[in-house]
């Protein structure tokens, strides 16, 4: 049947809700972002919780960059150039990004890259 040859188009699914079974990998946790806090403090709770996962994901992007440019120059460029760019970004995003880098310990340039990835990825 169509389900076993690309694009593996299935018959329309039914009774998948409430989410269950092999296509459901888990619920999503809620956090509050207090917009009354200074921008650099807003993401502290979220990033403290997700720090290891964020570091893990950034490392995967680094590994990818090193696969393209084994000399490591691409990451160097990110770590040197993008922090210069962060001060051109509008607030509150600029201060929020700096706060995320401070709490997570991820280099500022890499947090900037993560946040402008949509525009970068169009390359």
């Amino acid at each position, binding site marked *: 049947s169509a389900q076993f040859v690309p694009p593996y188009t299935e018959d329309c699914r039914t009774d998948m*809700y409430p989410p269950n079974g092999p*296509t459901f990998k888990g619920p999503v946790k809620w956090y509050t972002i207090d917009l009354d806090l200074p921008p650099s403090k807003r993401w502290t709770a979220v990033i403290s919780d997700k720090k290891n*996962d964020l570091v893990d994901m950034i490392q995967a992007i680094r590994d990818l960059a090193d696969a393209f440019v084994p000399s490591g120059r691409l990451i160097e460029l990110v770590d040197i150039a993008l922090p210069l760019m962060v001060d051109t970004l509008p607030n509150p995003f600029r201060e929020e990004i700096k706060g995320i880098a401070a709490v997570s310990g991820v280099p500022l340039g890499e947090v900037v890259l993560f*946040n402008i990835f*949509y525009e970068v990825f169009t390359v």
Partner: protein
Amino acid sequence: CTSVVAQDEKGKLLHGRNLDFGLFLGWDVKNKSWAISEKLKPLVVNLNFKRNNQTVFKSTNFAGYVGMLTGIKPHIFTLTMNERFSLDGGYIGILEWILGQRDGMWMSFLTRSVLENANSYDEAKSLLAQTKMLAPAYFILGGNQTGQGCIITRSRELSIDVLEIDVKLGRWYVLETNYDHWKEPFFLDDRRTPAMKCLNQTTQANISVKTLYDVLSTKPVLNKLTTYTTLMQVSEGTLESYIRDCPNPCMPW
């Protein structure tokens, strides 16, 4: 990505989306999965943005990403964005930015500003349609009145097209994947046809959060890039998200 705004027979608007990301960013042969997509799944969080202890808007985000890809202004509007590919792409916007021409907005900062500051569907629509951007995009916007659902196709400078829900024409939903709705999708990446087939099979009489989730769970609308599914009901002010997996056999995109 796949985004849908649908209007049921009582005029209620539902908004659902699959966030697919990580294409070509490293394929894990052993696990038959995309490396970055798998790394993004643990980062998925639901956020309640509050001011004076009142909810301003809610969103589903990747932790560490301060812009918005999926959000609801409870009882006012719902918003998702899908990636649009164009030669006049984000890298040109970034070059202009570096060279000092900074009159455009970064896409996810625009969506964040709209969710934080716009106070009506029409206000959100005009901001999303008219603000100059660094990269092209599709904005999928749902309101709180019947007929308020649209796909805004954006180039960096202009709003190229706005497709609205129009029940009189039999268009009780608008659906966007990653291709201009007036063109055929790339034949190797046609998620539009199966999604439309399932929506039409569901019918307007039976569309609900439950059946919308069924559509977003049908391969290849669900694929190896799908990190999360979000369902939003503007009238209830609810947003619910679920982290996804696509068991083999499953399309890589």
